[in-house]
């Protein structure tokens, strides 16, 4: 019996199917819970669906700029309150029905409705009305000017969906994108095929398979064994050196919108004392964290802003590693004889490893930490919702999310009217230079208030076979855009 098994396995060893040039198997770490980007926060849904299956009025380009998508162009009224979107001609959903202004109205009204389960409902909060002018024109009226509106409409959560297929969207998504959903083997993979009736440039790939491999070891060996053509957002930076040394593979290192911070509970004593927060900032050695937790991949940040953004200010100089100063600040704040803080860590390895390193660094200046490793569900409940924590480590991956500092109820519990004013001015500002200036003011305020420990920007690490072209190196939003991917030979 066993001999039979082994013989079988031995035979299959020699049948590894060579990848066909027009197909691609790409892995991501997490499996989406379902495939409706408009009713869950799971980024894994956008990995599979963004740009591939679903499209929005506007979209993110690889460099983070906003470009037209289903809306070919738009006109903004003088007062900035009315957006008139001109939709593209000849766009159909994968089920053959046409995409028109009614679908846009349906999608936006559904997202902002009372029983909406959209995870980013805030994106649609400023919309006062959506009116259909004619089948190819839709007019959106805002209740106040919003410099971010076109940016908001580019998110996966703002995908245009059809009322005809909405009931089964979670298991059979029907969008307008260059790929059609084909099959989902739960626990393993989702398969897509090329949409032959695509309105734009058709995809070069005939078919694409997303595989879900959460375990970093399995990810490494699946890639090494050649089972995969690419792995987007490779979860184990420690293994990249082996891919770089292997001539079959290439490694893409890009940027993401993920600012990794040592989240701090600004209302909870002793952390309501800026001297204590500043002491923590000086106790942190960013390079050691990047080396130890990320094996060198990551860009140090001194504020909550992505370094690749043109408005970025390098403020790491506000908080250099200086244990002496940290100890002095603690003594000044009356904690010279030590201090114990809780440190609650979510599952990703940057948090778990980074947490252990930070605990060691804090111990050196006289701060003891009690580490608790939490699952996401517990983290959401204890840290995010109940604010029952002192310190935590999280990468905030939403694009341009410095606005969270203006919300005193956010789990940082940071309440600074000056920053709130800057952010509300920003919302009403459309002039690019003025916006940039306001964004830099905001960066400076949160940095100088030592709201959180600012650690590093998450890198986007992608491993691919040498012949794969056109994969995004950067991740301006959560997406694995395959529309421009092809094989070279």
């Amino acid at each position, binding site marked *: 019996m066993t001999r039979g098994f082994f013989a079988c396995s031995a035979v299959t060893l020699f049948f590894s199917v060579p990848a066909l040039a027009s197909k691609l198997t790409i892995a991501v770490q997490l499996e989406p819970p379902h495939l409706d980007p408009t009713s869950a926060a799971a980024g894994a849904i956008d990995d599979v669906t963004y740009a591939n299956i679903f499209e929005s009025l506007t979209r993110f380009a690889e460099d983070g700029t906003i470009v037209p998508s289903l809306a070919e162009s738009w006109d903004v009224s003088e007062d900035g309150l009315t957006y008139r979107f001109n939709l593209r001609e000849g766009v159909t959903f994968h089920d053959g029905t046409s995409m028109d202004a009614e679908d846009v109205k349906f999608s936006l009204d559904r997202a902002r409705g009372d029983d909406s389960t959209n995870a980013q409902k805030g994106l649609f909060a400023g919309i006062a009305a959506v009116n259909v002018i004619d089948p190819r024109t839709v007019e959106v009226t805002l209740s106040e000017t919003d410099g971010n509106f076109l940016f908001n409409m580019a998110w996966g959560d703002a995908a245009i969906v059809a009322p005809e297929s909405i009931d089964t969207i979670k298991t059979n998504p029907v969008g307008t994108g260059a790929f059609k959903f084909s099959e989902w083997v739960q626990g393993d993979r989702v398969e897509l095929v090329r949409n032959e009736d695509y309105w734009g440039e058709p995809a070069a790939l005939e078919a694409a398979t997303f595989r879900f491999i959460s*375990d970093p*070891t399995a990810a*490494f060996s699946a890639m090494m064994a050649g089972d995969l053509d690419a792995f987007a957002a490779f979860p184990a930076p*420690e293994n990249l050196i082996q891919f770089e040394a292997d001539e079959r593979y290439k490694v893409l290192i890009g940027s993401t919108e993920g600012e990794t911070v040592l989240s701090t509970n600004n209302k909870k004593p002793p952390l309501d004392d800026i001297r204590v927060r500043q002491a923590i900032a000086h106790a942190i050695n960013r390079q*050691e964290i990047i080396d*130890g937790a990320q094996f060198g991949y990551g860009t140090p940040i001194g504020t909550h802003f992505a370094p690749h953004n043109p408005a970025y200010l390098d403020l790491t100089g506000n908080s250099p590693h200086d244990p002496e100063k940290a100890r002095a600040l603690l003594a000044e704040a009356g904690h010279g004889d030590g201090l114990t803080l809780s440190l609650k860590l979510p599952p990703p390895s940057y948090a778990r490893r980074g947490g252990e390193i930070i605990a*060691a660094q804090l111990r050196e200046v006289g701060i003891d930490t009690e*580490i*608790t*490793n939490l699952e996401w569900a517990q983290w959401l409940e204890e840290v995010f919702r109940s604010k029952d924590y002192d310190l935590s480590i999280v990468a905030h991956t939403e694009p341009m999310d410095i606005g969270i500092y203006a919300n005193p109820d956010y789990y940082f519990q940071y309440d600074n009217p000056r920053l709130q004013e800057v952010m509300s001015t920003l919302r009403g500002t459309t002039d690019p230079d003025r916006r940039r200036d306001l964004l830099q003011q905001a960066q400076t305020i949160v940095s100088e208030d030592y709201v959180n420990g600012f650690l590093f920007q998450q890198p986007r690490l992608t491993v691919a076979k040498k012949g794969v072209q056109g994969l995004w190196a950067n991740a301006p939003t959560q997406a694995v855009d395959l529309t421009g991917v092809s094989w070279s030979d």
Partner: protein
Amino acid sequence: MSGGRRASWSFLTGAVLVSLFAIAALVSVIWTPHDVSGMNISARMKAPGGDYLLGTDHFGRDMLSMIMAGAQTSLAVAIIAVGIGMAAGVPLGLAAAANRGWLDELIMRANDLAFAFPALVIAILITAVFGPSAVNAIIAIGIFNIPVFARLTRGAALSLWTREFILAARVAGKGAVRISAEHILPNIANLLIVQGTIQFSLGVLAEAGLSYVGLGAQPPTPSWGRMLADSQTLVGLAPHLALVPGMAIILSVLGLNLLGDGLRDMLDPKLRVVRT
């Protein structure tokens, strides 16, 4: 496994291995070769040898020191869990044997049920409710030790209740509680010691499994299971990261098992031990 020569061999080997880990655990309280939680990122993943006898981990911490301190965690968790199992299981088993009526039925049905639950899943749920910590690992392991001891005690006590010296005690007017405590318990002590050793070894394995999936002692408290979990993606680069804690688990469990077998052969070769 009988025969005096082999018994003493396995007893000796077991005793040596177990004392080795016990001593390491005790010594680690006051001294380790390096600071257990002292990191040195630039000296990470050093192979065994030189300044670091068993090498360093991915943060540049000394593996030998971590293994010593980890022994403390492992042994403490397992020993307390066995204690919980005995403290609750033995009285339950004695009561069941003495009563033989509905109480017996109730205790044994509850026992069967406890055996039917997938231990790991329950442990995961317990930590989901109370959060992961060494204490909750102890409780999770301890709960599953209770039915083992209850069943064993009941079985052994039942056969004693039919013996003449018990009958004599009953005639003398002693109550069930006194008989259980004065006559039954001393006669099953050997059995309990042997089973306790086996449960101890299973406890060490269980603790390693729980902390491997992140449910045991939290960092920076060292634990063998977590050392293994941390090494998962790094074995390809530095195999000693997985080999060292793995060998610590294997050798300590092996030692306890050998000790248990040796004890059994020395105390009473006919004893039957349950192994689940």
